[in-house]
C-alpha cells in the first residue's frame, strides 16, 4: 500500500467517524420531546429516528460536491479541488480535510461529553476553516459572499446561528400558546394519544430531513477526497458505495443515541407536556423545511433547541432553566472557533511532520482525544435507562435517584 493511499483511507475513516458523531449528536433534536412526554420509549424513538435518517440519506440523489465552497477556497465552482492542491495524489487537500474532520469530531465529542447540543455542521465547517487558515492564510476563507446570494462564514454560519434559535423560539412559543389554548382544557387522557401521533409524525419528518441534509455533507467530503487522490473524476455524481457507507454511519450514530444530549434537551431546559412537545416538534420541522426550501439552511440543533425553549416560554406555568440554556448558547458561540483551533493545530501536525507520519500522528491524536473523552463519559453513564430521571442541578444522574427508579 502506498503512503498516498493510506492518507486517503485516513480521510475516509475520519469522515465516517464524523458522520457517526453527527448522528448521535443530533438524535436529540428530533426525539428529545417525544422521549420527554413518553410519546415514544427511548429505544423506540432512536430506532425510528435511525431508520428515517437512513432513508433520508438514500434520498440524496443529487449530492452537491461543493460542500466547502460556501466558506473556504479549496474547490473550484464545479466542486473539483483547486489545481494547486492536487499534486502528489492530492496530499495537500487530503491533509486539510483530515485536520478539519478531526477538529469537528473532537468538538462534537467534547460537547457530547458535557451534554450540550451544538451544531455538527458548524463543527465540521469550523474544523475545515481552521485547517484552511493554517494552510493558506486568512485569504483562504470566504468571510462574506459576493452579494448576489447568501454566502461566506458570516452569511452561512454566524448569522444563521444568531437568528435560528430566535426564529424557532418565537414560532414554538406562538404554537405552544395556541395549542394549549385550543386543547389545554380537554381531557388529557383522550387528547394525549392525538398529540402523541403528532409528535411521532413531526419527529419522523425531522429525522428524514436530517438524513438527507447531513449525510450529504460527508458524502461530498469523501468524494472530494477521492477526486483529489485521483480515483474518481466525475463532479456530477458520487460513487454508490460512498452513499451506502455514509448512510449507514449516520444511521448507526443516530441509533446509538446521544443520551447525554437527549437528556439536556428533554429534561434540562424545561419540563415538556404532550401538547407542548407536539408544538415544539411542529415548529422545528416547519422551520427546518421552510429554511431549506428557501435556500437559507438553518442548523437543526439550534432550531430544535430554540423550539423547545420557546415552547417552555409559551406554556403558562412552565419553568425554563435559563442557566442550562446559557451554557448551550455559549457552546454555540464557541463551536466555530474551537473546532477551528483544533483543525488548525491538526493541520500543523499533519503538515510539519514529513511524509505519511504527519497524517499518522493526526490519527493518533484523534484516537487519544476521542478515547479519553469516551472513558471520561463512563464515569457518569447516561443511557436509555436513566435519560428520563429528574433533572437535579445538572445532567448527571445522582446515584440515589437512580436507585429509587
Amino acid at each position: 500500500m502506498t503512503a498516498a493511499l493510506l492518507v486517503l483511507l485516513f480521510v475516509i475513516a475520519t469522515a465516517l467517524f464524523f458522520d457517526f458523531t453527527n448522528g448521535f449528536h443530533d438524535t436529540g433534536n428530533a426525539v428529545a420531546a417525544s422521549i420527554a412526554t413518553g410519546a415514544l420509549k427511548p429505544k423506540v424513538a432512536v430506532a425510528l429516528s435511525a431508520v428515517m435518517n437512513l432513508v433520508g440519506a438514500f434520498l440524496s440523489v443529487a449530492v452537491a460536491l461543493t460542500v466547502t465552497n460556501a466558506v473556504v477556497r479549496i474547490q473550484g465552482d464545479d466542486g473539483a479541488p483547486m489545481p494547486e492542491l492536487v499534486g502528489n495524489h492530492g496530499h495537500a487537500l487530503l491533509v486539510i480535510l483530515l485536520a478539519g474532520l478531526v477538529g469537528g469530531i473532537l468538538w462534537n465529542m467534547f460537547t457530547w461529553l458535557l451534554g450540550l447540543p451544538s451544531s455538527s455542521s458548524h463543527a465540521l465547517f469550523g474544523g475545515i476553516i481552521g485547517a484552511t487558515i493554517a494552510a493558506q492564510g486568512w485569504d483562504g476563507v470566504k468571510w462574506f459572499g459576493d452579494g448576489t446570494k447568501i454566502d461566506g462564514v458570516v452569511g452561512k454560519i454566524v448569522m444563521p446561528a444568531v437568528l435560528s434559535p430566535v426564529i424557532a423560539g418565537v414560532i414554538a412559543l406562538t404554537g405552544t400558546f395556541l395549542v394549549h389554548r385550543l386543547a389545554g382544557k380537554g381531557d388529557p387522557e383522550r387528547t394525549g394519544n392525538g398529540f402523541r401521533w403528532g409528535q411521532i409524525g413531526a419527529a419522523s419528518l425531522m429525522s428524514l430531513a436530517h438524513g438527507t441534509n447531513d449525510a450529504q455533507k460527508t458524502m461530498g467530503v469523501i468524494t472530494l477526497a477521492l477526486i483529489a487522490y485521483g480515483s474518481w473524476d466525475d463532479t456530477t455524481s458520487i460513487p454508490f458505495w460512498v452513499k451506502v457507507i455514509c448512510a449507514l454511519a449516520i444511521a448507526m450514530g443516530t441509533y446509538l443515541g446521544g443520551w447525554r444530549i437527549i437528556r439536556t434537551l428533554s429534561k434540562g431546559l424545561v419540563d415538556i407536556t404532550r401538547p407542548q412537545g407536539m408544538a415544539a416538534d411542529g415548529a422545528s420541522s416547519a422551520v427546518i423545511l421552510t429554511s431549506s426550501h428557501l435556500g437559507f439552511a438553518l442548523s437543526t440543533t439550534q432550531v430544535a433547541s430554540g423550539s423547545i425553549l420557546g415552547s417552555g416560554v409559551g406554556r403558562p406555568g412552565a419553568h425554563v432553566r435559563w442557566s442550562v440554556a446559557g451554557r448551550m448558547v455559549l457552546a454555540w458561540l464557541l463551536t466555530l472557533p474551537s473546532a477551528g483551533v483544533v483543525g488548525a493545530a491538526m493541520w500543523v501536525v499533519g503538515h510539519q511532520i514529513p511524509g505519511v507520519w504527519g497524517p499518522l500522528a493526526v490519527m493518533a491524536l484523534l484516537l487519544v482525544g476521542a478515547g479519553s473523552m469516551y472513558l471520561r463519559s463512563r464515569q457518569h453513564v447516561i443511557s436509555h435507562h436513566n435519560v428520563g430521571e429528574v433533572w437535579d442541578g445538572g445532567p448527571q444522574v445522582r446515584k440515589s435517584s437512580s436507585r429509587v427508579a
Partner: protein
Amino acid sequence: METLRLVFSAAWEILWVGLLLGAGLPAVFAAGVRLLAGPAAPVAEDDSEVVRRPGLPQRVLAGVCFAVVLYGVAVGILIVVGGGMGKEVTFDHLIPALVPKS
C-alpha cells in the same frame, strides 16, 4: 453589507412562513384532537365520568383539520425528497410540484 441584507430578508420570510406552518399547523392539529375528544366530560353525581362521544359535525370538522395537517406533511416530505434530488418545490394553485432548480 449586502450579505446581511440578504440574510435578514430570508430570515424574515422564514419567520412568517414558519409561523403560518410551524405554529398554525400544530394549532389546527390541536383543534382536531380537541374536537375528536368530545366536549369536556362533566362529572356525574356518583362521581363517575360521563363519556360523551363527539357528534358528526365535530368529527367532520376534525377530519378537515387533520386533512389540512396531512397536506402540510406531504409538502414537507416533497421538499425533503426534492432537495435530495436537487429539485425544488413550486406551488401553482396550491398543488405542489417538483421542478428543476432555477
